[in-house]
């Protein structure tokens, strides 16, 4: 794992207006940066943003998949689509990539972080490298991205940082506690970040999906009953527009996780969850 000081470079601007001007409601298309753009939930959101004519900068590591997602966004009517093939595990590359993306979009209204892997829980229980890889992709890499982005946004008193965490982070369970702990760390980081920069005019949104039917979950038991990704995406897009702090989607998961969290540990530890 590389560490990076995340210096914020000075950004040449291509806009006529001063991007550091006070936050005012964005009129017209939004400038959206999507990190992990080939994830199932991210792609469904991208389609909705494209259909309403937003500008998109898409980042993912697989060139062929990214090209298909970008072509779809363009065809659906996005005002502007650009993309970069980047392995976001390589945190050292983040500052340059982010600066380039924001230049390309001529500013930033929303950064949407959807990078993440499910990993293999049984393997990760015995193999630290597997566990570390899950923690790195799901927690360390987003922290690197958010450190840079939060400072960029805070300085301008504008912007929304919408991040996919998971209900799995609300309480560790034996079936997926490595993935769950990576998301728990991420949720805690986001809560703290929101506490720090909400007052600067930057929205931080913690999105906690329950199980959703996507490529990531197709091999999981019962996946045919998981939530429909298009409905989940519609809820997420609406919550981002509203600037909601925290979102459980589908909403029933707020109640389910509420119940799971209050089960006393002496009982919980004996359950098969």
């Amino acid at each position: 794992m590389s560490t990076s000081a995340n210096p914020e470079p000075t950004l040449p601007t291509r806009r006529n207006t001063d991007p550091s001007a006070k936050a005012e409601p964005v009129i017209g298309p939004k400038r959206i940066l999507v990190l992990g753009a080939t994830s199932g939930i991210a792609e469904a959101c991208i389609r909705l943003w494209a259909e309403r004519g937003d500008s998109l900068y898409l980042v993912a590591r697989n060139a062929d998949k990214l090209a298909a997602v970008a072509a779809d966004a363009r065809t659906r009517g996005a005002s502007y689509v650009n993309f970069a093939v980047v392995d976001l595990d390589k945190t050292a590359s983040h500052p340059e990539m982010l600066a380039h993306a924001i230049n390309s979009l001529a500013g930033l209204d929303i950064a949407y972080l959807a990078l993440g892997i499910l990993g293999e829980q049984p393997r990760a229980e015995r193999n630290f490298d597997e566990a570390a890889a899950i923690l790195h992709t799901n927690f360390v890499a987003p922290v690197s991205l958010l450190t840079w982005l939060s400072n960029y946004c805070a300085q301008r008193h504008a912007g929304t940082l919408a991040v996919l965490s998971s209900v799995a982070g609300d309480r560790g369970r034996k079936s997926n506690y490595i993935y769950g702990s990576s998301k728990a760390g991420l949720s805690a980081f986001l809560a703290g970040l929101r506490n720090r920069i909400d007052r600067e005019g930057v929205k931080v949104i913690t999105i906690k999906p329950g199980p959703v039917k996507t490529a990531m979950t197709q091999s999981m038991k019962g996946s045919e009953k998981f939530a429909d990704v298009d409905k989940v995406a519609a809820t997420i897009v609406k919550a981002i527009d509203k600037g909601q702090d925290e979102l459980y989607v589908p909403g029933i998961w707020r109640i389910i996780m509420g119940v799971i969290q209050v089960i006393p540990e002496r009982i919980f530890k004996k359950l098969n969850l």
Partner: protein
Amino acid sequence: MAHPTATEEATTSGLAPFESWGRYPTYNATVRPLHWQGDFPGVLEGIHGGALAVGMGRSYGDVCLLKEGTLLQTTSMNRLLAFDPATGLLTAEAGITLAQILDFAVPRGFFLPVSPGTKYVTLGGAIANDIHGKNHEMAGSFGNHVPQFELVRSNGTHMLCSPRENPDYYAATIGGMGLTGVITWAQLRLKPIVSRGIDYEGIQFHGIDEFLDLKERYKHVEYTVSWIDCVSRGKNFMRGIFMLGDHSKDPGELKTSSKPKLVFPIEAPGFMLNRATISAFNTVFFHKQLKPHVKTVQDYEPFFYPLDAVLKWNRMYGKAGLLQFQYSLPWETAKEGTIAILREITNSGLASFLAVLKTFGDVPSLGMMSFPMPGIMFALDFPIKENVSFPLMQRLGDMTRDFGGRLYSAKDACMTPDQFKAFYPQWERFARYKDPALTSSFWERVTGQEGDR
């Protein structure tokens, strides 16, 4: 990332029953979704017993099934890749449904060049079955509007297929029942519209001569189809309603369709479909139109996709499922053959209500194995009744063969190898283009290779 994710590891989901629209037959298969164009042929790693791409599973029999095999479901591979509003040329991944294409196209003033009876089929499935619509006389079948597509073979070869490039694979894949490879993306030529409306007319008729007269009188109209009563005898034999329509020329609002809310809630018990209920339905349907001739502007949804308003309507036929019998007969025998076959059906007492009669025009299909031929096409659903339905299907298949016609593979669960080889004598030439890793229960049945895997 250096480590494999759960997705990239071979999925180990087991065999589970997979249903086609007719719900007969139903075979166990392992489903492996294709999410990306690059997933095939890598997805085949570690599988045994053959594979077959499947979209929405809306064909009726076993053309989209593979007993104990692997079904590669394409519906997540549904991206739009390009659209040129100047020409109407749309490029999309093969798993996109016609419903999704309409949601995109209608607000932009475009429509499908050929519409089947349901919009819940994929682009790839529409090509693989070379589907047809109510405008066959003018437009031909679906493949006539697909200038090119990409075919990926199980050995990893990518082929651009068009009338000029790989023309033999182009012809074999249109109507090729998914057996020639996996279609990753395709182009479709959409046509401009100015309104959702259809200038509709419905005209009652009695008998095939009146039907053929109406057909002749309205040959300038783009869409024509007839519902006919296959239950009544005597003076009501072959009564029906001739339905016709053109896209309205008066500009109207081009909004997207709302999503259907009705779902057929349960499997209807078998006794609900009997001669009395079906007879009553047919009489009501015939007289629903109170005047012998009505004229109105209708939305395209009820005109093209009346049954899509109720999701899972196939449950109406109960647990046993349904059989569809659909033939095309050449003009030389069309009239005499249709009368003879309908008489056989009426006398059997097994007919149900969804009977459709129309004519096919002479625009040649581009597919090697395409179904349409110039003449008359007829389609009817039968409930499955032990010991009665299957012998009737055999007799009807033989009659179709003797009249020089053919049955539609996409709707079939019953044709014998002998019948298939008579309907499609070019089948051996087609077999040369088949991908060795792909097969279907239909193909194994009609070529007599069941159990060879």
